[in-house]
């Protein structure tokens, strides 16, 4: 009888593969960040881009230093602003809202106005040069 030599297949011990994988995982967990940057998007007008607009289609929003909002010279709260802009947009969808601030107005107040304008559905927001 011919003895058949059994060829033993030697496998590379892969027991430590899990350890290597864990190490790599810990490295990535520690050095990276799931950056959850969120915010209000806006496109600024290019320099020198002054479009001719019909004054009837513009409504002015002013924000003073204390954060109070004037809509066409009428003091409004933020929710009133949202409601009024919604109504104005329903009547005139080409409405452009011009936002003007004073140099000392706080960024939060400005964002509150932009936020409420967005909620009201205003697509055309123009940022006016603040009075110095």
């Amino acid at each position: 009888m011919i003895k058949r030599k059994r060829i033993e297949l030697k496998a590379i011990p892969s027991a430590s593969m899990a350890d290597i994988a864990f190490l790599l995982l810990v490295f990535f967990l520690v050095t990276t960040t799931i950056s959850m940057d969120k915010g209000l998007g806006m496109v600024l007008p290019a320099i020198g881009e002054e479009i001719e607009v019909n004054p009837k289609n513009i409504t002015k929003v002013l924000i003073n230093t204390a954060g109070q909002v004037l809509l066409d010279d009428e003091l409004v709260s933020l929710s009133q602003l949202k409601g009024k802009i919604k109504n104005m947009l329903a009547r005139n969808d080409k409405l452009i809202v011009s936002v003007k601030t004073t140099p000392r107005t706080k960024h939060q107040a400005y964002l509150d106005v932009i936020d409420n304008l967005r909620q009201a559905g205003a697509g055309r927001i123009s940022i006016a040069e603040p009075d110095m």
Partner: protein
Amino acid sequence: MKFKARTKAKSEIPTASMPDVIFMLLVFFMVTTVLREYEGLPIVLPSAVRIEKLESRRNTAHVFVNKVGLVSIDDKRIPMSSVRNIMAVKLMDNIKIITSLKADRDTPMKIITDVHQEFRHAQTLRVNYAAKTRAL
């Protein structure tokens, strides 16, 4: 006589697939995260309701502005008049760049307006005002 071979049933949870699971997790983290590039300035972000996620992390420049008017881009303090040069360079590298403007909520609008002007001169017109979520 017939002997029935008694086989002891060893019940062990097969852990041969553990490295595969770990590799999946690893690939997930490699794909969803970005290596931390900057520390930025200590600021309190403003809050807003209608906030959107940034489209693509690769295409964003992060500009920090604190309430005193210090501007920091890529962890370097930049004087206000040089912001346009830095941003112009970034625009050349990536035309689709969106700037994530992280300004403190009490920053006076004068500083924000100056930053706007710098962005307009650099032609980096797509801006995202970073804000925290706020319930309506």
